């Protein structure tokens, strides 16, 4: 009696174990992305409905961690990722220079806005991410209007910027803001007690909870929480941070056809409509921003107000920029 119980327990366990390990061997499209679940979840469902033969798997993490992972995979001889989709544009120029990317001009290229210089299809912008100032409306009563408002007592000791070593949007923002306003800008923020947080999601969550009064925040992450009732608001100073998030296909991917289908899908009208529903700017002009995101500017307005980005220079100075910023914030 007892032995049969034990036996059945063991055999079930082996069966379960075997099944689950078997599942790992199945071929899948691996998309490494820094986009959060709120955005990729909807895309995944819609894509798999359209292409039921392709099983797609998102590895969501900060751009810094993903690049670390890719570097480690490269060393071990095989890059697991098929598609990379983050906001750390210099990484893409670097990967392209290393010859790791497959140039692919998407089917509907004509309908797309392209903010990236030297375009050859190696990577294509999928969204125009914007970063503004998120603040907790329970604690901050007057909305900040300019970048200089962050130096005011309203944000004393509790303004957060994500760690640029972890987050691609944070790295791009730090690089662009320091080019535009000089490092004095961050020194002044630090003098007002600004802190370096972890990931781009974490600083917004801490702002929603009230641990931070405000943060340098990614559009859709903030608006998703506003949608769910967080006491948050998002505002944009006149000089805007517009950071494109490109997607690229790895040259050695064993699933190139599936990868191309995925890139085409996220750039299609259907894909872009899903992306816009999350509260970020599309790259297609024929996709409308939903009414409820009144904080978001139009694509034309955003492009007009956007601070200029010199990608080549930013790529060359990456390590120095991160170090300089970390030094200032940890002083």
């Amino acid at each position: 009696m007892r032995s049969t119980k034990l036996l059945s327990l063991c055999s079930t366990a082996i069966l379960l174990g075997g099944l689950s390990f078997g599942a790992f061997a199945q071929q899948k499209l691996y998309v490494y992305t820094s986009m959060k679940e709120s955005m990729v979840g909807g895309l995944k469902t819609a894509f798999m409905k359209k292409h039921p033969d392709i099983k797609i798997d998102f590895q969501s993490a900060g751009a810094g961690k993903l690049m670390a992972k890719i570097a480690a995979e490269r060393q071990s001889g095989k890059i697991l990722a098929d598609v990379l989709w983050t906001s750390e544009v210099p990484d893409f120029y670097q990967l392209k220079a290393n010859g790791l990317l497959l140039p692919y001009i998407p089917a509907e290229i004509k309908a797309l806005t392209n903010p990236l210089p030297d375009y050859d299809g190696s990577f294509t912008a999928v969204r125009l991410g914007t970063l503004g100032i998120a603040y907790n409306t329970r604690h901050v009563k007057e909305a900040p209007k300019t970048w200089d408002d962050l130096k005011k007592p309203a944000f004393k000791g509790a303004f957060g910027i994500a760690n640029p070593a972890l987050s691609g949007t944070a790295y791009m923002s730090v690089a662009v803001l320091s080019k535009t306003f000089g490092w004095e800008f961050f020194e002044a923020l630090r003098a007002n007690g600004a802190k370096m947080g972890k990931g781009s999601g974490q600083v917004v969550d801490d702002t929603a909870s009230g641990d931070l009064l405000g943060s340098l925040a990614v559009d859709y992450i903030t608006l998703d929480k506003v949608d769910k009732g967080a006491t948050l608001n998002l505002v944009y100073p006149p000089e805007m941070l517009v950071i494109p998030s490109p997607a690229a296909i790895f040259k050695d991917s064993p699933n190139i056809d599936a990868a191309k289908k995925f890139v085409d899908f996220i750039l299609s009208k259907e894909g872009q409509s899903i992306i816009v529903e999350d509260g970020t700017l599309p790259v297609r002009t024929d996709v409308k921003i939903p009414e409820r995101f009144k904080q978001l500017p139009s694509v034309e307005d955003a492009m007009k107000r956007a601070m200029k980005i010199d990608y080549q220079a930013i790529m060359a100075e990456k390590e120095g920029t991160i170090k300089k910023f970390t030094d200032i914030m940890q002083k």
Partner: protein
Amino acid sequence: MNTRTQSRFGTPELLFMLSVGVLIVVVAFPMLLIFFNAFWVDGHFNVADVVRVLQRKETYEALLNSLILSGGVTVTGTIVGTFFAWLVTRTDLPFKKTMKLLFLVPFMLPAFIGALAWKMLLSPRAGYINRLFMDVLGFDGPLFDIYSYAGIILVETMYLFPFVFIQVSGALERMDPTLEESARISGADLFTITRKITIPLVLPSILSGALLIMLYSMAHFGTVAVLGVETGIYNIPVLIYEKIHQSAGSFDSIRTATVLATVLVLTAALIMWMQNRVLAKGKYQIIAGKSFRPTELKLRGLRIPMLILCIVYIGLTIVLPTVTIFLVGGLKTYGLSFTLENLTWANYNHILFEWDLTRDSIWNSISLGLASALITMFAGVIISYVIVKMKVRGKGFLEFLGMLPFSVPGSVIALGVILAWSGKFGINIYNTVWIILVAYIARYMAFSLKANSAALEQVHDSLVEAARASGASMAQALRDVVVPLVRPGMVAAFFLIFLPALRELTVSVLLYGPTTRTIGVAIYTLNEDGETVYSAALAGIALIIIVLGEVLIKRLVTQKNGA
């Protein structure tokens, strides 16, 4: 011994070779690689690099933090554990039996989930308790800042004090009460009896429990990672994690990590050595194995206040964090207040049925737990048999190998496994679920050996001899006599491994790949990504799975004992 019996001995001997092989490949090889990589660079013995790593500010800060934190936790945990142990064994506290069981509950709750709950309650500006005091009661600042040394020590104490509690309450129960009685008859007062008789008798138990706390806290990743990062408090396991994750997995960072691992192993070895010394000294024959009925101290007027103290303590350390986890897991977004319109089932639904990451993680943890528990259970019974029953030369070495990971911190095992199985020696299972399985087997083998050895020691040799004399082959004797007798030990080993593996974080956080997150990793990374409500919801589900598993064990084990 003729040739026929020789051939019959074939099976066990083959098993012996196999078990030695398994232990060397799974345990010894990765461990050796750590020391090798720490001290050898490009084929040369190199101490300069080791010294360079040790001289870095972050290294000695991490070591210092590890010592401060584990030292603090050891002191507070020992005081709390001893006090409650005394209260439930030697006083007339009401509901003692229930209280004793309740004090063991923190043992089965993962400390990092507790840390998450306390972050939600006591983070300086957003913690719900701090908000209550600041917004409603008009305090100027937070009541308590959990992002501090004191906060981390407090949280770890809550989950680690049972180490001392179990040891001390056991010793107090087994202590011969006539010793105290004769002292009282000779005219000693309570204070003198406590000082001269009770404390010296239970001191070895207190110390060995204290060292267990220290060992555990030293190697503990979760609580420090959750509560310390905000204010820059990190210990060695956290530093190893950051080295592995943030520096592109380059060999230089792995080497730095191996040096850190060596420091950790040496510290752990020192603690183990101290424990052995204490235990060697503490062999007091006066603590008899029988269970006496010790005299109880009458608490009189303090009975009810002490009961209230226990209830408040349990309420604060078990009920409050658990309720917080479930409530935050039901919030629409983190930071809202707990009103009905802010609560939703959507997060739980999303976690369980819609989100691959979380669903995979539950699946991974359960299958990894089952697989590692089964493998170590069977391997453990074979190896224990060799150690306990067979007269083979070199079995001491076998025992040492099997028990080694018991004293080696999880981060070190993970690091060793990375060095051994990421392609340098022909096998590359990095990024797959197999590498986590190998690490779990190495880590939990000692649990299985302990449980199985204990069971095997109670099987008298004469039983096997009788079977053999009656003409049974060795394999038959094993199958028909030994295995049925040690089955309870095997079942115990299975659950001793399955449950910790289910909630494991320290090892898997260093080894996970795109589809191989465990529950612990998923909760931790969701928290790190700022998805607080999802991480709380998953933590709540994990708690349910753990408690169900725990209840299941109790059922099975009591059935076994009853039968």
